[in-house]
């Protein structure tokens, strides 16, 4: 009987000591992390396009922090959804096509011959990437444009095109070798992880 009492007391004592240690450590060595909204916001692509239904990336980040869906951002695409899922420890759902589809990066280009200088697109651009003023030529600063698409609608003469961005030689890099979990049907013609096709880069 006394053995049991001793055992219980010993365990209680150990639990108290370790609990106190842990509590102390939790307070003393506490690391202040970024508020979650900032972390979420830093993962979003900052195109401020509104395709998620919120007027900008920060409001969307706030809605995610409040428990909203993480799959509403087409410019961020799969990569952003995965990153958000990892950060928040939730499941990565596929992109909600209601809000748009993931397309390769584009920039807006104004056909300057047709521009009438109405400044409607300048007002629409969420990041002030269009240069110009009333009755003067407007032009898009290509390096700043995020391809959010908000300037196309307001233009009364429809002179804005969205063109895919071509980064040329400096933007090219090797693609990943084909996954090595070869299944029976694609073993043929497989060379060192690359599918061999005539003159094909992949």
């Amino acid at each position, binding site marked *: 009987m006394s053995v049991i009492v001793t055992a219980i007391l010993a365990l209680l004592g150990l639990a108290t000591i370790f609990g106190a240690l842990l509590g102390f450590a939790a307070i003393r060595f506490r690391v202040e992390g970024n508020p979650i909204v900032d972390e979420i*916001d830093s993962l*979003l*692509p*900052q*195109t*401020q396009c*509104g395709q998620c239904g919120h*007027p*900008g*990336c920060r*409001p969307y980040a706030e809605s995610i922090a409040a428990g909203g869906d993480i799959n509403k951002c087409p410019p961020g695409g799969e990569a952003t959804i995965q990153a958000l899922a990892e950060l928040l420890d939730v499941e990565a759902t596929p992109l909600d096509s209601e809000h748009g589809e993931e397309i390769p990066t584009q920039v807006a280009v104004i056909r300057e011959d047709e521009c009438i200088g109405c400044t409607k697109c300048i007002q629409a651009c*969420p*990041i*002030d*990437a269009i240069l110009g003023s009333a009755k003067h030529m407007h032009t898009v600063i290509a390096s*700043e444009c*995020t391809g959010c698409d908000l300037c196309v609608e*307001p233009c009364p003469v429809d002179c804005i095109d969205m063109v895919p961005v071509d980064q*040329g*030689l400096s*933007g*090219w*890099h*090797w*693609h*990943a*070798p084909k996954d*090595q979990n*070869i299944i029976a049907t694609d*073993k043929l013609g*497989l*060379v*060192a*992880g*690359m599918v*061999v096709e005539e*003159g094909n*880069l992949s």
Partner: protein
Amino acid sequence: MSTSTQSKIIPTRTLYDFHGGIHPEEMKSLSNQTAITQAPLPPKLILPLQQHIGNASQVIVEIGQHVLKGEKLADADGKISVALHAPTSGIIESIIDHPIAHPSGQSAPCIILIPDGKDEWCQLSPCEHFEHLSVSEIQEKVREAGIAGMGGAGFPTEVKLHPPHQDKVATLILNAVECEPYITADDRLIRERAEEVVQGMEIMAYALQPGECLIGIEDNKPEAIAALREAVRETQIEVCVIPTKYPSGGEKQLIKILTDKEVPNGQIPADISVMCQNVGTAAAVYRAIRFGEPLISRITTLTGEAIQQPGNVEVLLGTPIDWLLSQYGYQESKSQRLIKGGPMMGYTLTHPHTPIVKTSNCILAPTHKDLPLPPPAQACIRCGLCAQACPAELLPQQLYWFSRSQEYDKAEHHNLFDCIECGACSYVCPSAIPLVQYYRHAKGEIKQLKLDQQKSDQARERFEARQFRLDREKSEKEAKRKARAEAAAKAQAAKKAAEAAKPAEAPQDTTEQVDPKQAAIQAALERSQAKKSSQAPEIKIQAKVAPLDINALKTAWDKAQAKLDKMHDALENAIVNTPEQVEKLTRAVEKNQVRVNQAKQAWEQASKLEATISTKPNESKPEVPKPDIDTLKVALEKAQSKLEKMQDALNNAQPEQVEKLTRAVDKNKVRVQAAEQALNEVSQAETIQDGKN
């Protein structure tokens, strides 16, 4: 060779070793048995503007211009850049994007030069004794001669001829190692032109004033070693023979072998007071200073079993590779890939119609027997042979796992960017995993991610700046509005006080006359305030329901309706008189109908909204119905007068017009009724409101 060289005891320098390395089959005898031949003049020269690290050269010639051999075609642009010269005399045909030798197969701006066959030199400025030139003159000449590192990297040589941070260079190393299999260009160059190489090194030493000059060469080139030893006899240059191992020719590895110093990560050899140059570059420097010849040709090894006459050729820059190979017996049917460079670090060419550039040290055309296709990759068995072979002492296995699972931060932590992509790990991997491709992909992805992150940060900053600007403008407007409202209120109060003193002459009228206007202003202001307060999150919705001004919407609707009626009339007219216009007019009528409907909807929505706002007790409320009533009264009067006019017209009408006019009369009757109804409703509402108040 003279016996004195052989009997003299050559002091052996202590050589160190670097970690790892492999010993692939050298395959040098395929191409180093014959002397360097001169490649013939090709029918076309394709000269990329960027054959070096740094900024692309700026074109200074025009299409159609005739240029002489050695004439400058493009200027160096900025500090890290070199010039480009015409390899032979001819006409500039065009300056276009042409595919270049790059693993992506993409194009780059090139000057297309058509040789005229005369091979005329331009005016050159030779210099017999370089010691008579100043250091800066030599640096300028090298820059103007367009010399870039010819070992494969293409770094502008002139930049390397400036001592780092104005300190002295401790060691100048000439890289004659040529560790990659198959390549023998440097080997033959040294065997045949060792004097040029050594003189070039002397010029470099003159510019840099190094503490010591070393030439590193592998022990598999005995003839070249002998030639070098002969050439350096009268100089202070030391020839260091190092054991054959791949990749001893890598700059970092060679420095380790010869000096036991390691280039710290993120730094360049200049930071540890060492300069490395290729032997080809040294020979080019010599020719540039001594004869004034710019860099217009280089020695390239053509090798591989698919070439019938392998060997080294002195080839003009810009020579198309496919043409060059055809001159040396290239058998396309036997070749499975064309490699620019060696088998370890060279890249495959997708278009053989690409040019030889300053960094093309070898074109390798192997058959299936030479370089068989690698077997399909198996799973990594974690044997660690890759780590044993890595000259940078990395853990290729871990880098592979991280690259594959896209854990790029861990890959960076494991020093992914210190990988020199030498290929030793992939060479030894028993499972034939294409490791280097994984690392290249991961590096590209990491760079892209960083760029994207930078871009998104910038976009966020701009967005926040814009929000700040808009908020500021809004608050300024608010302040102004308040100030104006206060001023107006003051003025109104003053006026009221003044009028209270006067006898009341139709006070109703004046107040009514003054009030409606003031009221209108006030109403407009209140409306805009209401608009702003409800504006907050709904940017997009705003665009659709922009003006909450009901009157404006009503007018718009009326206008649209009027237009529609006109179109209807025109249509009827057309049906009777001009049938060919019927289609067009029908369409116009439809369009206008749509517009009318839209306008009507907008007005209805707005009135609903107004109704919800107006449920709050509001001081402005009593004033709002008044203008409405007046306009409605006016509208009613107008409609009534029109109706009378139409009725008159009907009575006096011609028989053919009767139908039309009857319809018009009916329409107007309807309008009058509507106007009356509207007026009644509003009056009722007003009386109720007045009753409430």
